[in-house]
């Protein structure tokens, strides 16, 4: 090899060097970070005294963002693996409905209802993935079919079984259930009560809960969001499987030839997405005590938007879970912030569209810098 070693130290005079700072900054999450800073700056300036940054206000947009995060993590990993899932929203409706039917209508113990529902969702996710892999059809089409099929059943089932499309009373049957508490409870309630007493956070001034702290704990929803983001981030960046996810999405054929079990990776990611949707639905059912046939409408788009704002590439092979989480945060803060700021609420959609456009353009620019893509 001696004859080639001579080129070893030849640096390419045709490429300008990038500064170290610039290189440290240029990461997939950069767009998300910039967006987050921009959004917070904006609302700090224009809606500071609207209550948005009181403890209650913070809890308010945190909860909404956490919701987006839960589905964004699944959508993000799936998107990096090169597929996407339009049936997330219908899956949310479907799984919530299944829990309610199993526990309320059929009277099963809640923990069993939850476990069976999770199993069912994961199987449907696997089916989605299996069809995509076996037929080679775009996941857009396959999951679009499931969007309709699942929503159809979500409306049809309670209608024929219970003659309703909202089934309530889940909270009552879930009282004291160990598994339900994992989804519907709150943690650190003692700490918040103490903080309230110590005057560190506001307390209610009137009404039934006078004297209690306005925020009385961290809902499990947020805990789940944090756990899933951390899990997803570590899985993606620190494990062998994470490398396979990137590879499967970057070029399935090349990955397969290099020994990456692409089909398995993709199907598992479909299952994980279904799992996340199911977590979302379970938290929602446990918090609100009811399941409705209209739950989760358009959530698939919201998940995809959060992920894309967070810098992932729609065509796969590139992205970051942290970015997706920041995307979800931006989404949640903007949505709630506009209400705090008192903007006409129907304009929210307009803002969302514009932010989406700007975010992807920024992210595309960053990605090109990183990957040298043309």
């Amino acid at each position, binding site marked *: 090899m001696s004859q080639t070693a001579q080129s070893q130290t030849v640096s390419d005079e045709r490429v300008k060097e990038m500064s170290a700072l610039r290189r440290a900054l240029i990461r997939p999450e950069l767009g998300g970070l910039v967006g987050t800073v921009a959004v917070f700056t904006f609302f700090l300036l224009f809606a500071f005294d609207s209550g948005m940054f009181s403890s209650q206000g913070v809890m308010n947009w945190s*909860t909404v963002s956490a919701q987006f995060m839960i589905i964004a993590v699944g959508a993000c990993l799936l998107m990096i693996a090169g597929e996407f899932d339009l049936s997330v929203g219908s899956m949310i409706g479907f799984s919530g409905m299944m829990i309610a039917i199993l526990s309320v209508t059929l009277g099963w113990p809640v923990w069993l209802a939850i476990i069976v529902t999770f199993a069912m969702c994961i199987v449907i996710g696997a089916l989605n993935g299996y069809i995509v892999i076996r037929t080679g059809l775009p996941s857009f089409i396959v999951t679009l079919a499931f969007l309709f099929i699942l929503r159809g059943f979500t409306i049809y089932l309670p209608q024929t079984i219970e003659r309703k499309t*909202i089934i309530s009373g889940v909270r009552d049957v879930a009282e004291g259930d160990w598994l339900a508490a994992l989804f519907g409870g709150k943690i650190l309630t003692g700490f918040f009560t103490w903080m309230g007493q110590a005057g560190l956070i506001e307390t209610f001034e009137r009404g039934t809960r006078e004297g209690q702290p306005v925020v009385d704990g961290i809902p499990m929803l947020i805990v789940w969001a944090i756990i899933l983001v951390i899990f997803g981030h570590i899985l993606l960046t620190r494990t062998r499987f994470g490398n396979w996810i990137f590879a499967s999405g970057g070029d399935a054929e090349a990955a397969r030839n290099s020994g990456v079990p692409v089909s398995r990776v993709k199907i598992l990611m479909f299952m994980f997405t279904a799992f996340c949707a199911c977590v979302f639905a379970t938290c929602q059912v446990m918090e609100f005590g009811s399941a*409705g046939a209209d739950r989760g409408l358009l959530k698939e788009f919201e998940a995809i938007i959060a992920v894309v704002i967070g810098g992932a590439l729609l065509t796969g092979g590139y992205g970051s879970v942290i970015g997706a989480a920041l995307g979800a945060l931006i989404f949640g803060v903007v949505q709630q912030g506009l209400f705090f700021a008192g903007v006409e609420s*129907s304009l929210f959609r307009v803002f969302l569209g514009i932010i989406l456009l700007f975010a992807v353009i920024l992210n595309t620019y960053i990605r090109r810098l990183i990957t040298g893509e043309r």
Partner: protein
Amino acid sequence: EGERYVLVSHAPDSDSWWNTIKNGIALAGEQMGVEVEYRNPPTGDIADMARIVEQAAASAPNGIITTLADYDVLKGPIMDAVASGVDVIIMNTGTPEQAREVGALMYVGQPEYDAGLAAGMRAKDDGVTSFLCVNHAIQQPTVGERCQGFADGLGVELGESMLDSGTDPAEIKNRVMAYLNANPDTDGILTLGPVSADPTILALEENGMAGDIYFGTFDLGDEIVKGIKSGVIQWGIDQQPFLQAYLPVVIMTNYHRYGVLPGNNINSGPGFVTADALEMVEKFAGEYR
């Protein structure tokens, strides 16, 4: 015996309020020995609904029971149906005058604007001065009328107080909280059905305003009934959907069998359900109430 009727609604598949309607026609169908089908545009698109009315007419039923969600859109198809020999009864939305215009036999329902107006006047008497209207179906024009009526009843401008809340419960809850946070002087809330009422109850419980703020809602459901019982909700406007579904079937069947027809329209609502006399309501909320 065995007459066939079709009920056409304007509601999207997911709107749970229409269950009571479905249960009403099922019961009436069973009792009268007739067949009643329920149809609706899956996305709630009223132009699609017009096609369904046309379709229903083409399938030559004995009668059609339909809402008049948008007079302009539905006028033509309904008049065609009437002209081709199908009897029509208007239910739920619309007004008695419009029902007459299109040649329907009668009208059974609760004019949305009037119901809102009545509610607004009642709230005004109870001392409400500013309000939040939580609209979970901003794209459906009819329900928005309620907010307008309510505002007129109160004698205030609707302005920014109609909130486009979406249908996701967590978002509704948090948007309501955000709004109340940003507009602390709001002293009344109007929700337009269980979809927006249930999360609003939770929002009020969470921010401590439950029972403190004036809260009225349209339509009934499990949670709403509980809310009325516990004092969080002052009243629910019951337009008695059961009657809106049940009566037209019964009336139409009797008209076809024996030629009898009530001489007037029937207003099934607005009836204010308050904490008194909740027992029956509680038992059948969401099913027959």
